[in-house]
């Protein structure tokens, strides 16, 4: 599923047949804004929701959770019809078993931190998670007795996240759950979210403005603009589509990959990922990789450079031979799409370099990037 080689169509046909799905076909009208979404989302991992501010991300999550009462259309979660305005079905939020971490944390101010967590635990039907474990993972042990309105912004987000997870819903909706956190906490909590997703096979929808975060945890990406779906599918494909979308200032152009780990540590502190039978990609080794067989990573288009001859005497460990598939002149830059094996790589070079090197379509070039240019958010 996570293999970037599977194309969009394949993904869709696969999900239609086997994976349980969240089917959305809804319409919500506000005075100045209309949300109109028709989309089936496979429920087998984390689906990212991405888009400009005010594109309707929170509204979509609220609709799924049952908090938007003015919607028309239908939402079906696996076999359960959550809403069907034609049949007059409208399942109450508390009956949907859908969790939501709000953009503002919405903690119960009359309870302590522990009280907030226990509120979820008491109403949870499965109890597959240990309260103590979640408290440890969210680093809340020292705060259990504190009043929630004395917490810092980031602490509040951690409590809200822990509380939502402890309810063990069938579907968890996360609305920018880590926006008030520092890099370190973000990394830790992303790991936790991933672990819990796997442990409970709990599908999630994850709203974030940070593509780095989404990149790291999502299998599928839904991109919204002005209340409409502009792109949906395998996260790598969607990102590569966005690379070529000039108007849309949403992302930094990049190559997004999920690759199998070939060697965890080659003895020189590098991890090798198998790009294809012949070619590997190297990146700095990290303890966190040890438990994984597959790795998500991305390489910013601006981090890759082009040489015409195989480089030597350089600290750069990655050089891949590829063929230029597309040349796309932008203002002062040129976006190249270079195909290595069957994987597209996106490279931006300066217009100046393009002039100097006068690259042409179907020309063979070496892609060159540092081990550290292969980024994972978790590290």
């Amino acid at each position, binding site marked *: 599923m996570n293999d970037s080689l599977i194309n969009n169509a394949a993904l869709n046909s696969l999900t239609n047949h086997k994976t349980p799905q969240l089917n959305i076909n809804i319409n919500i009208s506000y005075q100045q804004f209309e949300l109109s979404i028709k989309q089936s989302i496979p429920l087998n991992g984390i689906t990212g929701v991405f888009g400009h501010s005010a594109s309707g991300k929170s509204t979509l999550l609220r609709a799924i*959770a*049952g*908090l938007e009462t003015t919607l028309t259309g239908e939402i079906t979660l696996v076999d359960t019809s959550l809403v069907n305005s034609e049949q007059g079905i409208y399942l*109450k*939020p*508390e009956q949907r*078993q*859908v*969790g*939501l971490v*709000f953009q*503002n944390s*919405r*903690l*119960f*101010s*009359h*309870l*302590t931190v*522990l009280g907030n967590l*226990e*509120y*979820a*635990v008491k*109403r*949870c*039907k499965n*109890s*597959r*998670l*240990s*309260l*103590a*474990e979640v*408290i440890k993972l969210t680093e809340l042990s020292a705060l*259990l*007795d504190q009043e929630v309105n004395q917490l810092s912004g980031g602490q509040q987000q951690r409590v809200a996240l822990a*509380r*939502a997870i402890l*309810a063990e*819903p069938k579907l968890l909706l996360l609305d920018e759950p880590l926006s008030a956190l520092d890099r370190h906490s973000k990394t830790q909590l992303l790991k936790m979210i991933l672990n819990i997703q796997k442990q409970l096979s709990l599908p999630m929808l994850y709203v974030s403005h940070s593509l780095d975060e989404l990149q790291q945890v999502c299998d599928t990406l839904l991109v919204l603009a002005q209340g409409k779906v502009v792109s949906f599918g395998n996260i790598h494909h969607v990102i590569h589509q966005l690379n070529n979308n000039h108007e849309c200032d949403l992302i930094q152009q990049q190559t997004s990959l999920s690759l199998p780990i070939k060697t965890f540590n080659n003895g020189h502190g590098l991890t090798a990922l198998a790009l294809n039978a012949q070619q590997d990609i190297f990146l700095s080794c990290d303890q966190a990789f040890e438990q994984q067989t597959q790795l998500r990573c991305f390489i910013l288009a601006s981090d890759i450079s082009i040489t015409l001859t195989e480089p030597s005497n350089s600290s750069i460990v990655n050089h891949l031979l590829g063929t230029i598939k597309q040349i796309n002149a932008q203002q002062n830059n040129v976006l190249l799409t270079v195909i290595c094996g069957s994987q597209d790589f996106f490279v931006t070079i300066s217009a100046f370099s393009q002039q100097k090197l006068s690259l042409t379509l179907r020309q063979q070039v070496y892609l060159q990037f540092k081990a550290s240019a292969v980024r994972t958010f978790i590290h």
Partner: protein
Amino acid sequence: MINSDLQALITTLEMAALTTIILLIIGTPLAWYLAKMTSRFKVIIEAVVALPLVLPPTVVGFYLLIAFSPEYLPGQMWQQATGQQLAFSFSAIVIGSVLYSLPFVVQPLQKAFEQLGDSLLEAGALLGAGPIDRFFTIVLPLTKASFITAASLGFAHTVGEFGIILMIGGNIPGETRVLSIALFDHVEAFDYARAHLLSISLLISSMVLLAAIYWLNLPKRNKPKDLTVNTKREEQSANE
């Protein structure tokens, strides 16, 4: 003599306590409904609830007495259902007090519910809490102060009520003779010494009661609790 005042005190407390409980039971859903209702019809209900305030108690009492008498429908129905006459009974003064004190309970609660907003209720629903659960675990603790206000206004107003109770209760010792009537009797009978004594003891005891209620309601500060993380749940998962 002092005995009769004591009996009046007991009747008063029974009546006020029962009335307050009934007021909270009736008033809470009514206030909730009014707070969350958006129809224009709400205005009418609000006005009806507030009406008993506008008429003098003796007049309200007169109309209630008519309604409670076995000649008219409500009184008849009561008599058929319970086999007893409604007018001049303990039940009558409780019902009268409930009607008369209703606005004091409904209005503070309604405003509290309105000010509460939806965001925490939404959060509760998404953690799986149904409406009743949400009411007791979110609404009630967050509006506790307003409940105490409502209950103490209702209680105090019932204790002090006089005109209605006198009219529909008939001043029957041990049944409908309450403290406010006893106090009035002492004044009327020129027994000022006893009236003063009774007033002062009523004042002091009410003051103590009210102070106790408000004291209970003071926000507690920095009250350390035991760590109770080691729940059953943890043991469960340890066994997995």
